């Protein structure tokens, strides 16, 4: 059907971008799993929200930096211009950063309060929103609409 040909020089920047994006989504999944679990497991709530905060600080944010740096690198190599799929990528990445920073602050507050209540629920909601947004970005990056 198709011959998928990509210049060799694009491969490493693409690897950095994709690896960063995969770790970013993986770390978000860990954060949502432990925070949701904290809301249902009273005894473990404090430990789990501390883990969620560390996951955001040491997993999600560094992965985001790798993903975003890789995106700029591959975009400059490809001279890709501004088609809509690139716009979707930038919108989810840049909007996502704001949500990540808010979620990190909320997770810190949740951890200080023992892990239960409104802050933890807000972290779950924000990370769920981020995962859905990055799902849309994955669709845009693979199908490249327009």
């Amino acid at each position, binding site marked *: 059907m*198709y*011959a*998928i*040909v990509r210049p060799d020089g694009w491969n490493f920047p693409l690897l950095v971008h994709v690896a960063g*994006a995969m770790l970013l989504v*993986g770390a978000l999944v*860990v954060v949502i799993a432990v925070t949701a679990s904290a809301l249902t*497991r009273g005894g*473990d709530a404090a430990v*789990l929200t501390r883990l969620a905060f560390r996951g955001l600080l040491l997993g999600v944010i560094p992965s985001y930096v790798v993903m975003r740096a890789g995106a700029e690198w591959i975009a400059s190599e490809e001279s890709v211009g501004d088609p809509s799929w690139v716009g979707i990528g930038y919108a989810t990445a840049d909007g996502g950063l704001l949500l990540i920073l808010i979620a990190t602050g909320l997770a810190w507050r949740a951890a200080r309060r023992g892990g239960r209540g409104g802050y933890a629920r807000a972290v779950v909601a924000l990370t769920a929103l981020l995962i859905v947004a990055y799902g849309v970005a994955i669709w845009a990056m693979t199908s490249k609409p327009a």
Partner: protein
Amino acid sequence: MSLYEWLLFLHVLAAFLLVAGLTAYGALVLGGDAARRALAPPAMALWNAGGLGVLVLGIWLALEVDAYELSDGWIIAAIVLWLVASGAGGRLARTLREGGPDKARVQLAVMSLATLALLIDMVFKPGA
């Protein structure tokens, strides 16, 4: 969207699920008992669903795209790496049920290295 675009999207989505499962396994192996209780079910579900998805959709993609053959070296390498990662994943799940943190770390390292090599193989497609 064409069939190729659907297959590619779902194949890549499955790879994200696989890495999400691997990340969850990493957090539960390196974390304490609370992390283990919270993360064991999603880690196994994501790893298994992602692993099955990448294999089935990857083979379907190889059959769909004229430029690829299942006998291509990079595709055979990917299948071998998938088998290594899946084997280590199965052993890790068993180790976590039975205890044995040292063995779990080694199995996690094997899963991580095989998955990274799989990603490198998919991006660089050596010999394609």
